[in-house]
Structure formats: C-alpha cells, structure tokens
C-alpha cells in the first residue's frame, strides 16, 4: 500500500475513534471523554472507574453500544453499496436494491402487527427472515428474467415495490395508531434499541463480509469494463456475482434487523469514498467503511440530540445530510463521467 493510502487509512481510523469517544459524551447526562476511557479501561480490566453505577451504565449500557452499532451499520452499508455499485455497474445501486430492506420491513411488521410466530419471534428475527425471503425472490426473478446485471436491479425494484405494498397493506388494515408509530420509527431506521448483542452480531457479520469482499477486491476492479471484460481477465463472473451478492445481502439483512432501514448511506458514502481514495477496491472498500462509520456516528448523535428529549429517526438525518452531500460529491466529480 502506498504511503498516501496508509496516511489516509490512519487518518480515517483516528477520526472514527475520536468520533466514537465524542459521540458518547453528547447527551443529557454530562459525561467527559476521560470518563469514557476509564469505563472502557475498567471493563477491559485495565484499571478502575470511579464513576457512579448510573453514569457507568449510561456509558457502557446505553451510549457506547449505540455509538458502536452506528459505526458498524454505517461501515456495513457503505461497503455493501460500494460492492454493489461496482458489481452491478450501476451508480444508483445500494444495499437495498436487492429488496432486502423492504423484505425486512414486511417481516418486522408481520411480527409486530400480525403477531406472526406467536410471540416467540422478535422483531429483529422477523426482519431477518423477511430480508432473506425477499433477496431469494430477487435472485429467482432475475434468474428467470435473464440473469444480467440490469435484470438484477429491475427485479430488486419490483421486489421493493411488492414488499412496500404488502407492508402498507398490513399496517393500514390491522395496526392501531400506537403500533403504526412504532413500526414507522423502525422503518425509517433507529439505533435506539442498540445493545451489545446487536453490536457483536453485526460486527461479526461485517468482519466476515468485509474479508470476503476484500478477497475479491481486484476481481471487482476487473468489472470496470463489464462482465465480459472481467471474464476475459480470468474472472468466474457468475460465481463471483453470486458470492458477493449473497454476502452483501446477508450483511444488509443483519444490519436492517438491528437498526431498521437506514437509507442513503449505502448510496452516497461509496461515491464520497471514491472521491477520496480512488476507484481501486483494495483502497475503496476500507475507505468506504471508515467514511460510512464516521458519518453514521455523527448522524445518530444528531438524531438523538437535535430535538432533545425527542428522538428523530436516524434515517431522516442521513437523508437530510446525505442529499446535499450527494449533490456536492457528484458536482465536484461531474467531469469524470
């Protein structure tokens, strides 16, 4: 890796650690950065914390898992977006284009509103199953329709419409006002329920997916001139596509089932990362992950403080910041297309 790449990576990692520490200090209870370090150190067995149990709990049980889940979600969505945009050769592709988020929504709503699973299944589990069902449908549809990349995107759009309609139908016909509000909050994305289980689960899936995608980094580079050119460079196109689509769909399903359908991060951050780190995937994928993580940590911090004590769904914040940022990135790179 080049010195510039290393410097960029180090700067990104530093920015992420500082953002996490800063995000934990923001909120109604007054917590300083030093307190965050001492709580973390105490938990790791590297000293003792002199904070009261309540403040210790705020850091360790509430704010830290939430900030970490935000980072993992941001990183995961951005990496998925970067991979899918390259794989499908479509700058509009994002993690949700495979119908994963709309399927997850239907699954979650089915659990919450209809009581599917008889109470034994959590909202997250319902969302996960819904996401996978929808992804399987998209794969099947795109296979029937010819299997080319544009067919994958079209099948994804069709599944998105179908499952959105199903979700709306279930909510409008059966839910009361209170449930509707809860479901809506989840649909727009929220990190409010973050716990350590979510963090570990999502981080593990992220680590595996990132490793798989990085192993295919140069294969993804080879897709720049299309699948035929990639095949002529020795890439097993159908297998690569299936492996990477499944990996990104699984990661998206895990993220969506923990944090809801947070929009726009997967679409915008890869473009920003390309402007920073270039198009080579060995650098682009880590850059997209770091950029997504930092972005999401701050978006969530804003979401829970801007209307304090009320909380704004983080998906609303990502879109409100994301759209102008998107326009700016595209404006600055307009000559490059």
């Amino acid at each position, binding site marked *: *890796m080049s010195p510039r790449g290393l410097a960029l990576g180090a700067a990104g990692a530093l920015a992420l650690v500082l953002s996490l520490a800063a995000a934990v200090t923001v909120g109604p209870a007054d917590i300083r950065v030093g307190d965050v370090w001492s709580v973390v150190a105490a938990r790791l067995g590297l000293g003792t914390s002199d904070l009261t149990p309540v403040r210790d709990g705020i850091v360790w049980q509430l704010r830290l898992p939430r900030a970490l889940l935000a980072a993992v979600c941001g990183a995961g969505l951005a990496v998925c977006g970067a991979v899918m945009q*390259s794989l499908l*050769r479509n*700058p509009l592709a994002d993690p949700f284009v495979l119908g994963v988020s709309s399927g997850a929504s239907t699954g979650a709503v089915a659990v919450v509103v209809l009581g599917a699973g008889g109470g034994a299944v959590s909202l997250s589990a319902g969302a996960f199953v819904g996401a996978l069902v929808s992804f399987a449908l998209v794969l099947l549809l795109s296979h029937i329709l010819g299997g080319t990349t544009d067919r994958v995107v079209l099948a994804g759009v069709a599944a998105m419409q179908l499952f959105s309609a199903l979700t709306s139908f279930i909510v409008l016909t059966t839910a009361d006002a209170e449930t509707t509000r809860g479901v809506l909050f989840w649909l727009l994305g929220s990190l409010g329920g973050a716990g350590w289980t979510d963090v570990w689960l999502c981080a593990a899936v992220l680590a595996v997916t990132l490793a798989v995608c*990085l*192993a*295919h*980094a*140069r*294969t993804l*580079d*080879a897709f*720049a*001139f*299309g699948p*035929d*050119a990639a*095949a*002529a*460079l*020795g*890439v*097993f196109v159908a297998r690569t596509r299936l492996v990477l689509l499944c990996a990104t769909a699984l990661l998206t399903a895990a993220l969506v089932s923990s944090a809801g359908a947070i929009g726009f991060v997967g679409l915008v951050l890869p473009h920003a990362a*390309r402007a920073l780190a*270039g*198009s*080579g995937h060995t650098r682009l994928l880590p850059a997209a992950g770091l950029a997504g993580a930092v972005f999401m940590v701050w978006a969530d911090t804003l979401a829970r403080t801007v209307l304090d004590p009320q909380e704004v769904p983080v998906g609303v914040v990502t879109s409100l910041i994301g759209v102008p940022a998107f326009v700016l990135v595209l404006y600055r*790179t307009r*000559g*490059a*297309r």
Partner: protein
Amino acid sequence: MTDTFRPEADRDTAPAGLRAERVTRCADGRLILDGVGLAPRPGSTVGLLGPNGSGKSTLLRLLAGLLTPTAGIVTLDGTPLADLPRRTVARRLAVVEQQADTQVALTVLDVVRLGRVPHRRAFAPASADDERAVRDALARTGLTDRADQPWHTLSGGERQRVQIARALAQEPRELLLDEPTNHLDIRHQLALLTLVAGLPLTTVVALHDLNLAAMHCDRVVVLSGGRVVAAGPVGEVLTERLIADVYGVRAAVDREGAEGRPHVRFLGTVD
C-alpha cells in the same frame, strides 16, 4: 459439415497454440456457426472477414472461451479450453473488444494494470513482474508519458491503444481483437493495425475493411452464414469473385498495395 473444416496452419504445427475444430454454435434455435475450423500459425496475424452476422464475433468469443461451442472443440496447446481454469486461459490469451467503456474514473495506468488481474493472488501486492509487464505494455504502445491521464479524456483511438496495452500486460501469446478499428478515423485505424500486426503474438482480428485486412494480415479466413467459405494467404483469398459471392459487391482487385498485396476498389452492389 466436414467439407467446411479447413485447418488454416500446417498440420504438423497444429497442436501448439489456439485451435478451433469443427465448432458449431446455436443460439435460440438458430445456427450461428456451422463446423468452423481455425488454427492460426503461431506468431501470425489472421484476419477474420465476412459480412455482418456471418459469425465473426461468435467465433472470437468461442476462441476466447467466453462462449462454449454447441459442438466441436476449442483447444489451447491441445488441451480443451473448457478444461482449463479461467485464470490460466487469461494468462495465455487476451481479448480486445470493439469498444470498451466504463463509468468508473480510471487512469491509463489503472486500465493497463487490469491486465495483471489474472496473474495476481488475492491480497498479494504487485510483484516486480507485474510492474515490469505494465511498464513494457505502456512502452510498446507509446503510452508511457500518458500513464496518469484519465480514461474519459482519451479519444476513441487512444482508448483502443490503452486496451491493447492492457491486453499486452496480460503477457499473452494469443491476442483476439473484435473489429478494433470501428469508430476510429483512418489514421488511427492504420496506426492501430500496424501496432497489432507488429506484435510477436498470434493474432486473430475480425475486420470489416478488406483493404485494412489486405495490408496487415498474413492470412485471412472468410466467413459467410456461419461457414468458412475461403481461407489462406490474403493475396489468394481476396478475389473479385469472392467479394461478389460473399458481400454482394462488385469490386476490382489489383496488386498495387505494398509488397504486392491486393488492393480492393468497390464499384457497386451486385444486382
């Protein structure tokens, strides 16, 4: 079907290099190639001629292993192409398409480096061999000074030259080109084919322009309706009769090209 099978090179050199034997390809119930044989002599430049829809592109894709024949076989040094891993094939054989384009912001160097994809393992950094192959490919195509230029600022002719540099970076022994001069002005057409014909590789190039083929190819294979209708040294194959039969065009062929190569003047369609 057997009568159209005419191996192009001498039989004793046949097992070396790329060779198509009686390949047939059907798509959607339509016969696109019908028992075609091709065995370019190692190091030679073979022109693939024929009107639109005669099967030139399909034959090239079969030779590259991008399509599999419905019947017949394509071999590389005697081994069926289908039995070789794709990466192994890509280290031996490079393809240049009619017109390559990308949405991705890449420099000339980025594109040429793609040629090293089949040579590199996952996670491994570029080796000295990789760097040398990329440098040589840039030098051979006269692009050394333009390595950092963005792809989207290049003209059509320059883009094709970059694609050839990318193909050379693969360090192939066989190079397949599908109408690489389409969309180029005449100067770039000549420059590109001079470059290609001067490479020490076995080259199969599909061409529309008969005079370009006459100037640059050692031998030509003429396809019509998915069959080989003529094959051999360019001076023997390009005749007024053949052009009338295959293209439906009246032409006058003289020997006034360089080295006594044929030159074709078109007079009108055959009615």
